């Protein structure tokens, strides 16, 4: 068994050991769930990213945020930071490594620079190698993503407090409360990866 295969197996074990919360979530799986729109955004480094091409074969957690948010988003970001550390510990190779994607709710206020500053305050490492991208873009492009993921409230402060977990190739998604602890989120990602 290669090291990579062993690590993937350990990720699957996360799913098996955390059967409680994940199996409860099974009842909530949506098929086919949101469709990733074909739009181009920019990441924290101002690199262009086609949203629908980002995570076809990978388990992914999609969250929504804006850098001016003082209430839910900081706690949510702190939770994801702990999740990122847990994923790091697993040392998974691609494409088994889950990808965290945070999509801006504020196209006018969130620039790559303000996103980098925001992430810097949390000490978060972003980028492909860190398995976490924070994305912003035009109102029109972001709107398509918000609509797909039920975030289209028209007011950033009214965003729903949910993470979306899924694997687009499987056409299966579920939602988790942003207050979910990292173990629950990791179990959901592992369940998706195990399919």
């Amino acid at each position, binding site marked *: 068994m290669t090291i990579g295969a062993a690590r993937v197996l350990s990720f699957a074990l996360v799913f098996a050991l955390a059967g409680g919360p994940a199996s409860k979530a099974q009842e909530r799986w949506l098929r086919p769930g949101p469709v990733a729109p074909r739009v181009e955004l920019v990441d924290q480094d101002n690199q262009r990213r086609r949203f629908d091409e980002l995570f076809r074969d990978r388990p992914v957690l999609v969250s929504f945020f804006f850098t*001016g*948010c*003082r*209430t*839910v*988003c*900081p*706690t949510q970001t*702190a*939770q994801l*930071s*702990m999740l990122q550390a847990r994923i790091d510990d697993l040392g998974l190779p691609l494409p088994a490594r889950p990808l965290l994607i945070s999509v801006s709710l*504020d196209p*006018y*206020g969130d620039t790559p620079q303000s996103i980098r500053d925001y992430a810097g*305050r*949390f*000490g978060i490492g972003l980028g492909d190698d860190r398995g976490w991208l924070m994305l912003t873009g035009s109102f029109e492009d972001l709107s398509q993503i918000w609509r797909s993921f039920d975030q289209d409230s028209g007011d950033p*402060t*009214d*965003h*729903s*407090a949910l993470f979306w977990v899924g694997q687009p190739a499987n056409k299966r998604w579920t939602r988790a409360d*942003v*207050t*979910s*602890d990292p173990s629950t989120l990791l179990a959901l990602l592992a369940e998706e990866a195990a399919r």
Partner: protein
Amino acid sequence: MRFSGLIIAAAVAILPFSAGAQADAAPSGRDLFQGFRPFSAGQQAIDRNLPAGFAACANCHGADGAGKQEGGIRIPPVDMGSLTSARGALPGFAASTTILAAIEQGIGRDGRALRPMMPRYKLTEDEAHALLFYLSLVGTREDRPHGVSVDEVRLGALLPVTGPLADEGKAVLAGMRETVDAVNGSGGIYGRRLVLIVEDVASDPLPAVERLLQRDVFVVVGGLWRASEAELERRLAVAHVPVIASLVVRDSPPAKASWVTDLMAPRSEQRKRLLPALAACRTNGPRWLFLNEGEGEVAAGIEAVDGVAVSSARGIKAGCIGYDLGRLKAVEQAGLEGWRREVVLPFPNAVLPRDDGNMWKGLGQAALRIAVEALSASGAALHETSLLEALPKLKGFEPIAGAPVRFSRNRMVAWEPDVLSLEPPAPGNDERGP
């Protein structure tokens, strides 16, 4: 008031502190709650990777402790009256120790764990005492920031009242004083009269700011200093004194969530407004943008020019020139016979004085009217960020008739720019539209 004096009295009574200890502890409790001072354990004070700047109670529960709703999550009020009262079927917290258990261990009213959204804090004994005492004050009229007393709100004015800009500064001040007198003449705001405190920033602005801060002000209103005076603005922010509707015209707008807001549109917005006006200007000659240094062609058919090009434009076929108020004099001196002019203003056209009115006085009145409107919208219980939070609610308010403010959560500037289109001043021009 959201709860009766009786409840406050009962809530304070359950706190096991002497009156002396309360008086000493209260200020630091306020600073901790509002995020003006970090918890002594720093980031280790919170049970997760939440930066200290995001850990203040006020971030989620509001500066008035009244709770918030965001992202479908209702964050409950934490003033002592609410904490000690039953909520639905759940009992109120019966003692300071149980409130502390909620803060430190996440134990709720019914003994069950609070939602993970509520961080668990590690507090020193002094911090716990201070915070608990402050919960009996937060959101009440007794919970007062600097510069606010039972019967006064102290407003600061940083203006050049001597030196080369003295005329402008004095005119702004006259407009502000007139407005303050009118408000006080009709009873003040929530029973508080306005007190205007002026410091002269003509020679050395930083000592002027320090003098102003020593005189205990709640807010700086209007104000005229160089856009490069970042240290002046930083000092005010550190002291948690917001600036409402400064008269500074910057290159780009103040950052969102900063402590500074401007009255007039920045140059970046002026340029954005001017370009389409210039493109639409009817001329067979050149279209010149005279704003910054020369940059060549900046849009189809529009060339950015500098002062040298403008001053030597005689003899060139008359066209259309767009510029801002700062370049008015240079354009006048250049003559430019037969040229159409598109003058971008950092405010709506309606702000231009009619008859013999003084524009600077009008700007002073406008800045102060915005502050008054924000004070009215904030309610009687004020905190340091009340006015900044109130500004987006003033959308559409007209401090000068026909000049609505356009503040929003992301926009820290009151007015949008406007363009004044002027026909060629010289008679007999033979311009024809395309």
